[in-house]
């Protein structure tokens, strides 16, 4: 932290949406933190977006509502935005800008870290290979999350992505090790009731003491949302790489983040890209998503689960589209399953965990894990085809094997996929349920599983 005091300017030339243009600037730097003081003494924070020709464009995080051109002062603080970090952050609740939101004092900082983070040296990155158990069968069994992975959840409006996110936050563990595990939860533009749900859910499960919550509510200024994932990931990186913890960072809802980015871009009169989002949306999203992983020689890891709601369930929308390019797979929630009352309504055929193959198997989870996952994909895919066929020709026109697939598909949804909001299944239980589903098929159909595993686990009639 610098000792020098910044200069306070009073010449506000223009206020436009979330932006403020300040005149007669002599000293200002890109990304510098600015303290805005309104005529009635209210203080807000902002950062410099552009400097030049004696002017500075400042983005006001808490919005410009109530600010007037005359009487407003802007103090340039000579530093970028930092987050005070220490182990004391665990169990604390902050707002979207990293200020305490739990009636407790500011944390005593070990360090002050720039919220923009430092890029991870690609050469020092370690390939993620260790399993994280979420207690959710469909994720653990078929879309395994691996320490250091970034695996987004693509959802739609009204679907239970937040319930799933809270369940993952409560239940996630690194099995078989005594290493510390922490959850950093960033709620971006969520409703008050949702924020309370997250908080209560972690409190009631006793998981709050190993969690840090950042809550930006729907009625908070949209511009704050630009900072929320950054402060959250800064804390996640500190806990992981300074304190050696395994951190699961859940960011929900990244669509609100992208909307805020679009708002600023429009106010800056930038040339819009697809659907009005700025052309640098990909880069900006990557700046956040790439803040996950493991570093050689360090114990901790940052695993990211960003959640985004797809406008009109459109997976080709720029936000899920660009997210999919950056992340290592995706978990897609399906509206058909949601309407059938199945929770979690994960559409497995559209979902994928690209790093699953490296995090499962003998010595990590179970020897048959990958094979069972693949066989379940195969069986459910065939079941879906048979369901479509049955709608045309009727059940009577199906073969005996087709009927078995139909049965396996139903069993997959009711016995394996479906689970309660508070049901924490062990991997053994998940695998046992997977074998229950696969055992409803004739043994000869299990072509993706090694014979010795079929002999050991198949529960059907020989």
């Amino acid at each position: 932290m610098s000792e020098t005091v910044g200069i306070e300017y009073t010449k506000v030339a223009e206020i436009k949406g979330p932006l403020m243009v300040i005149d007669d600037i002599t000293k200002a730097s890109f990304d510098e933190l600015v303290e805005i003081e309104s005529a009635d003494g209210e203080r807000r924070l902002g950062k410099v977006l552009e400097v030049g020709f004696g002017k500075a464009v400042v983005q006001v995080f808490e919005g410009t509502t109530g600010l007037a051109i005359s009487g407003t002062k802007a103090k340039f603080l000579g530093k970028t935005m930092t987050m005070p970090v220490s182990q004391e952050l665990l169990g604390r609740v902050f707002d979207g800008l990293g200020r305490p939101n739990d009636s407790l004092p500011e944390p005593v900082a070990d360090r002050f870290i720039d919220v923009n983070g430092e890029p991870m040296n690609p050469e020092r990155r370690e390939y993620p290979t260790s399993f994280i158990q979420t207690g959710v069968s469909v994720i653990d069994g078929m879309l395994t999350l691996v320490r250091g992975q970034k695996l987004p959840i693509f959802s739609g409006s009204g679907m239970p992505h937040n319930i799933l996110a809270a369940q993952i936050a409560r239940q996630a563990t690194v099995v078989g090790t005594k290493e510390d595990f922490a959850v950093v939860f960033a709620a971006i533009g969520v409703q008050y009731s949702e924020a309370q749900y997250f908080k209560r859910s972690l409190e009631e499960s006793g998981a709050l003491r190993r969690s840090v919550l950042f809550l930006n509510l729907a009625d908070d200024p949209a511009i704050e949302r630009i900072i929320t994932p950054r402060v959250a990931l800064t804390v996640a990186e500190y806990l992981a790489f300074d304190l050696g913890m395994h951190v699961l960072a859940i960011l929900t809802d990244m669509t609100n983040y992208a909307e805020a980015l679009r708002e600023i871009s429009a106010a800056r009169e930038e040339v819009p890209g697809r659907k009005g989002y700025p052309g640098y949306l990909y880069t900006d999203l990557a700046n956040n998503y790439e803040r996950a992983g493991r570093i050689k020689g360090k114990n901790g890891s940052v695993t990211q689960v960003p959640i985004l709601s797809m406008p009109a369930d459109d997976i080709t929308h720029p936000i899920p589209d660009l997210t999919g390019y950056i992340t290592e797979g995706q978990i897609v929630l399906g509206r058909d399953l949601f309407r059938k009352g199945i929770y979690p309504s994960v559409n497995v055929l559209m979902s994928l965990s690209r790093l699953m193959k490296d995090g499962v198997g003998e010595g990590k989870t179970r020897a048959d894990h990958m094979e069972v996952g693949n066989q379940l994909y195969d069986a459910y895919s065939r079941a879906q085809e048979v369901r479509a066929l049955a709608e045309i020709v009727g059940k009577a026109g199906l073969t005996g094997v087709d009927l078995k697939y139909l049965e396996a598909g139903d069993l997959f949804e009711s016995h394996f996929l479906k689970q309660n909001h508070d049901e924490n299944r062990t991997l053994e239980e998940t695998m046992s349920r997977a074998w229950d589903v696969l055992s409803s098929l004739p043994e000869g159909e299990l072509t993706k599983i090694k014979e010795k595993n079929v002999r050991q686990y198949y529960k059907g009639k020989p």
Partner: protein
Amino acid sequence: MSSNSALERTVNKVLSQKESDMITQIDSAYHESMNNLESSRTSIESDYERIIDAARKQADNLKRQVIGSTRLNARNKQLLLVEAAVNEVFEKAKVALRSVGKDENYKQLMNRLLEEGLSAIGKDDMIVECSKTDMELVKKSTAFSDRQKKIKLTLSEKPIDAIGGVRVRSADLSLTYDGTLDSRIERLKPLIRKSIVQMLRGEG
């Protein structure tokens, strides 16, 4: 007579057949009941195991939850106590700073703060503000007198409420450099807080 004995035989036969049927039925009912009892016992045992298992899980969860929230509450109370102590230290430090004598070190500090402020604003017409007790000190400082020869520099007659230090402003009041000790303390508060907390906890 013979017809009577034939009737008797028939009745006996029917009776014995009925008796044997009833015994068979009783036997089969008995076996059925035993089977039902046996299967019920298995299902009751498995239900019992399931209920006990669920209760154990719930007890574990509750235990974790109670321990977690108790630890968290204790930690939070400690944070509040530490913060109250830190605030008290700050208040006492400010009182002590106000009453400290204006020695040679303070004169040098004022000179440096003034130099910094004048350089930061860098205009040809500037106003210097300070507390009532520091006015003479500012007038006599080399930074003030040297600059006054080159540019228009005014010492505001209206004193500011500050522990010490100076505030430099451009004459049109569009730029302000706050070099008061109050603003410096406020700015460095997070770092000072850390040192105070470490002392309170007996660390370092």
